């Protein structure tokens, strides 16, 4: 395709510019990152180079792989700006000053090819001001692409087209941002702060003011303003600590400078002596000495969490507020009517923020979907403002606003008692400003299981999994338990699925839309069985899982797994048994059983060994694949991206990576269908394993780790069991080990670990604290 972006130039190597460049590189596209020339020192590119070097040390990592980092070329705008002529898209992410941006654009106008898109990452300056004085051609090529920090992890990009922006130019950028950079695009209008930051800033200002006025503690404010509203548990004050307390006055200033007179935001602006003092004293949040919360290290070295008293400004030990009633937790209408400060505070936030959002329909965005998407993706809200209004009841909201003597936004009048979202004929629809319902649009090529589920019944289901017809002859296996944990119910549905696919479908895709593909086996259930001494049940679970996964592997049709988020333990073993994987770029894959004192039990040893032995560049002989598998499993390594999972051999070179989460199912389906013609199931592998000699070598390595203090006593025991499986048990170098023999060794090692009390202690710790026990 001639008309795609093949090279990008990012100007401005600050946190945003560098992060945007990294995400371009993560997509495998070369990027030129420019900043001002260094003032002193021999290397004039030092500023941009320093930004890349810093990113290589940043956590969470902006780069998905080391290879991606190599795609970023650095330079400076005095010596290299002419190289924008090589690029198909130029992103400006320099300081938020109109004059400086305008003078850069004047230079770009001379240097870039006509038709090459230029976009600004401004978060505050209107597009019309940015293109003042530019040629017609430049105005056609110009738009705003507003990324959120950190660009790799935040899925929102607000795009603003100007009056003169050429549709083709904008579409080319949008296609790249969507498919390559993996972002969901929200079209915003050319208004200050666009959508997410405008609502988000207003929300925080209202919530902070109300907490002070209504005499709430920061803990109470975060409790009420957090989970019940579908807001991340950081709520209000812990979120400000996270983004930086010092950002508050900056945001206030930039919005105050640009918002139209009469905007409700102005009513929130007032002096906040406490915040000013905190900033002056360095309490700027997590990046500083602490913020509204801080950790205090006592004389005994123990850390205690302190919270600031909003009235006195003094820190005091954190005090968890009394739990909300279950009704108030779940039901927004109940929450806002709780008598006293809980209800008052909740209503102050929701009444203001939801009506503000409603007011912005037509002004900042065309429809409610854009506003909801912006808040969900830009601020990680579980529900957008209009989804919250539906939970509260649009009529009730309008009624109470009226009762308070406040204006009711037009869109609420349009809605009346009707919800903003409904499902009609299995299709989700939203209420437009015209008073009619319209289908919620999906970008071309996007297929969501959420939509399939809304319009159809499962083909079959069990307590922990379901089968869905996702069209074109493809069946989808969805995990449905908490954390998408795997258990016997999943295994039995896999066995059921096989004849179903054979009879009625062409291929199977394993996919779900949970935050994580699967956190692995259901440990709670396993521990329960252990406590009950149900060893037969446990063994059955292992054998059943082994058989189900091998049935998937040898099924007479293609099986494609499509993970996103964590695919750990059994979740990773699902991938290892698939014909192919189409992974979301943010896939965190690993065999982590050793962390809880176990070994993989569902065929993970043999599958990993086989693919490592066949992987390119693996030295010959019986040990290299064994050593690599041993290292990966014994240290419970988890990839930090799909690209890294490929380096670690959890993914094959031929497996696909999808950048945009919304496109994962469609891509997986396409991959499965591409395998249908001429499909034959794989031949079972055989193994040449080193036996006792190999085990001796591995034991020596573990003993070294132990001496260095990097492995515990029980780590060494678990590693020994693992080594026994990977080296083939009693097999000799000249023996051929079959897949089933390896499965039997695996099962025995698993059962031995399951019987061990030190494993139970690890599992209990994991279930109780979420942290591994180092026994």
């Amino acid at each position, binding site marked *: 395709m001639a008309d795609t972006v093949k090279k990008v130039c990012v100007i401005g190597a600050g946190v945003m510019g560098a992060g945007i460049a990294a995400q371009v590189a993560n997509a495998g596209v070369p990027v030129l990152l420019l900043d001002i020339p260094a003032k002193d020192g021999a290397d004039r590119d030092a500023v941009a180079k320093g930004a890349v070097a810093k990113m290589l040390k940043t956590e969470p990592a902006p780069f998905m792989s080391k290879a991606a980092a190599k795609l970023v070329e650095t330079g400076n705008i005095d010596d290299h700006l002419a190289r924008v002529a090589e690029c198909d898209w130029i992103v400006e992410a320099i300081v938020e000053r109109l004059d400086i941006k305008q003078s850069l654009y004047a230079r770009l106008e001379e240097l870039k090819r006509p038709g090459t898109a230029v976009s600004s990452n401004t978060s505050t300056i209107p597009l019309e001001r940015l293109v003042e004085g530019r040629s017609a051609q430049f105005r056609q090529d110009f738009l705003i692409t507003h990324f959120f920090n950190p660009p790799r992890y935040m899925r929102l990009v607000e795009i603003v087209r100007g009056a003169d922006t050429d549709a083709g130019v904008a579409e080319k950028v949008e296609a790249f941002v969507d498919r390559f950079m993996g972002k969901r695009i929200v079209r915003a209008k050319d208004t200050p702060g666009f959508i997410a930051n405008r609502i988000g800033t207003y929300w925080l200002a209202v919530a902070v003011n109300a907490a002070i006025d209504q005499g709430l503690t920061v803990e109470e404010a975060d409790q009420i303003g957090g989970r019940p509203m579908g807001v991340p548990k950081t709520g209000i004050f812990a979120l400000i600590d996270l983004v930086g307390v010092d950002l508050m006055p900056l945001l206030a200033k930039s919005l105050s400078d640009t918002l139209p007179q009469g905007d409700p935001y102005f009513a929130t602006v007032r002096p906040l002596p406490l915040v000013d003092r905190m900033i002056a004293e360095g309490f700027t949040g997590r990046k500083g000495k602490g913020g509204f919360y801080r950790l205090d290290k006592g004389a005994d070295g123990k850390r205690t969490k302190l919270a600031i008293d909003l009235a006195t400004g003094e820190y005091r030990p954190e005090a968890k507020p009394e739990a909300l009633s279950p009704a108030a937790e779940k039901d927004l209408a109940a929450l806002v009517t709780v008598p006293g400060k809980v209800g008052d505070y909740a209503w102050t936030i929701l009444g203001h923020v939801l009506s503000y959002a409603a007011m912005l329909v037509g002004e900042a965005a065309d429809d409610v979907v854009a506003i909801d998407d912006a808040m969900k993706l830009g601020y990680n809200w579980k529900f957008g403002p209009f989804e919250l209004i539906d939970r509260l009841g649009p009529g009730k909201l309008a009624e109470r606003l009226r009762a308070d003597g406040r204006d009711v936004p037009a869109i609420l009048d349009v809605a009346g008692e009707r919800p903003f979202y409904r499902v009609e004929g299995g299709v989700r629809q939203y209420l437009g400003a015209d008073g009619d319902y319209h289908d919620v649009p999906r970008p071309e090529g996007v297929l969501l299981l959420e939509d399939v589920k809304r319009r159809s019944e499962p083909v079959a289901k069990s307590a922990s999994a379901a089968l869905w017809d996702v069209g074109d002859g493809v069946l989808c296996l969805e995990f449905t338990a908490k954390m998408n944990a795997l258990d016997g119910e999943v295994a039995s549905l896999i066995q059921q699925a096989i004849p179903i696919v054979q009879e009625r479908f062409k291929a199977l895709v394993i996919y779900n839309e949970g935050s994580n593909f699967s956190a692995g086996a259901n440990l709670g259930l396993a521990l329960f069985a252990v406590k009950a001494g149900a060893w037969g049940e446990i063994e059955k679970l292992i054998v059943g899982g082994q058989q189900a996964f091998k049935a998937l592997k040898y099924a007479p049709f293609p099986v494609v797994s499509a993970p996103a988020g964590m695919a750990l333990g059994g979740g990773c073993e699902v991938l290892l048994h698939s014909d192919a994987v189409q992974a979301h770029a943010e896939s965190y894959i690993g065999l982590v059983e050793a962390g809880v004192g176990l070994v993989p039990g569902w065929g993970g040893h043999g599958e990993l060994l086989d693919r490592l032995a066949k992987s390119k560049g693996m*030295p*010959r*002989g*019986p*040990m*290299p694949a064994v050593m690599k598998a041993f290292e990966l499993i014994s240290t419970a390594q988890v990839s930090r991206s799909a690209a890294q999972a490929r380096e670690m051999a959890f993914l094959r070179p031929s497996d696909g990576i999808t950048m945009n989460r919304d496109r994962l199912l469609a891509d997986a389906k396409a991959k499965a269908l591409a395998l249908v013609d001429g499909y034959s199931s794989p031949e079972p592998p055989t193994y040449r394993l*080193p036996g*006792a*000699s*190999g*085990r*001796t*070598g591995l*034991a*020596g390595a573990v003993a*070294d780790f132990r*001496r*260095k*203090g990097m492995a515990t006593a029980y780590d060494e025991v678990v590693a020994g069991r693992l080594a026994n499986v990977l080296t083939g048990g009693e097999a000799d*170098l000249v023996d051929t080990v079959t897949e089933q023999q390896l499965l039997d060794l695996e099962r025995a090692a698993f059962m031995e670990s399951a019987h061990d009390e030190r494993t139970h202690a690890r599992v209990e710790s994991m279930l109780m604290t979420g942290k591994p026990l180092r026994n």
Partner: protein
Amino acid sequence: MTEVVIAGYARSPFHLAGKGALARVRPDDLAAQTIRGLIEKTGVDASLIEDIVLGCAFPEGEQGLNVARMIGLLADLPLSVGGMTVNRFCGSSMSAIHIAMGQIAVGAGEAYICAGLESMSRVPMGGYNPLPNPDLAAKSAGAYMGMGQTAENVAEKYQITRAEQEAFAVKSQQKAGAARADGRLADEIVPIQSKAGVVDQDGTLRPDTTVEALAGLKPAFSQDGSVTAGTSSPLTDGASAVLVTSEEFARKHGLPILAKIKAISVSGCDPETMGLGPIGASRKALERAGISASDLDVVEINEAFASQAIACIRDLGLKEETINLDGGAIAIGHPLGATGARIVGKAAALLAREGKRYALATQCIGGGQGIATVLERV
């Protein structure tokens, strides 16, 4: 008996494995370039060379397939020059010299290239397929013991404190730094062509390190141990080569005679304290040479670890001012198979440079051995 002499010495620059400038250079190319450099430097007529005897501790992968022969072909030596790969772990290339000496002594040729090679970037220590004998591992804990652990054992046995080790390491770094600054290393280094350009400097030295900096490091091998990365030789890529000829051959062809080989030896010891290997080997060699430790003017003792070097120096009663004049392996690096030829070549070159009489080159060897060579200025 035919007198055997060292008639030339050269080495590649030494670089840290994995991250250094030689990590992407194939070991056979590295050694071939080093040998070419030695031939050019000495001016020896290559057609008169009998054999390349090359030491390598892990002769597999790119160092496999009798790499000595491949290196001869790569270096465009006449087809008549043979090639043999020798393995005695860290003593490999010193053994190569000893083998050549024996061959010359029995009249099997007059000129040998004795080389050493290790790319610890490209072939892992322990090799790709470590398959220890389970019965031996059970019987002899030291047989397959990690080298770091043996260094801890030596430190404990000889009561060598961490501070002593660190002072020793800093001194090694300072000596190497001064030698490089004075240009005393340049003439032994053969510039190596890598894909990224010419490499003509060592990448291993840390002349600015201090005892304070080293004191901050964590123990590298044992949680409560005293040996750190700073008091160990680094994993290194490098090659070395020495021209070994009969004295008569050297004189006839006008080759520079650096020293003659006076005596050689190997000696086994307890694998769990393999770092003490130089003690037995040096005693034997000195006795065979008919001299005592106090007669030595120059000593090249390999610094696999500060602890074992200190223990050997102390036990043998070596004079401090004779030790590793231009720094040792802690600073310069220890590409396993290449070290033996480096320290023999270096000792010979130092005798010539300093105008002294006797030198000792000695090193410890994993599995429990020592090897030693006594040289005398002609």
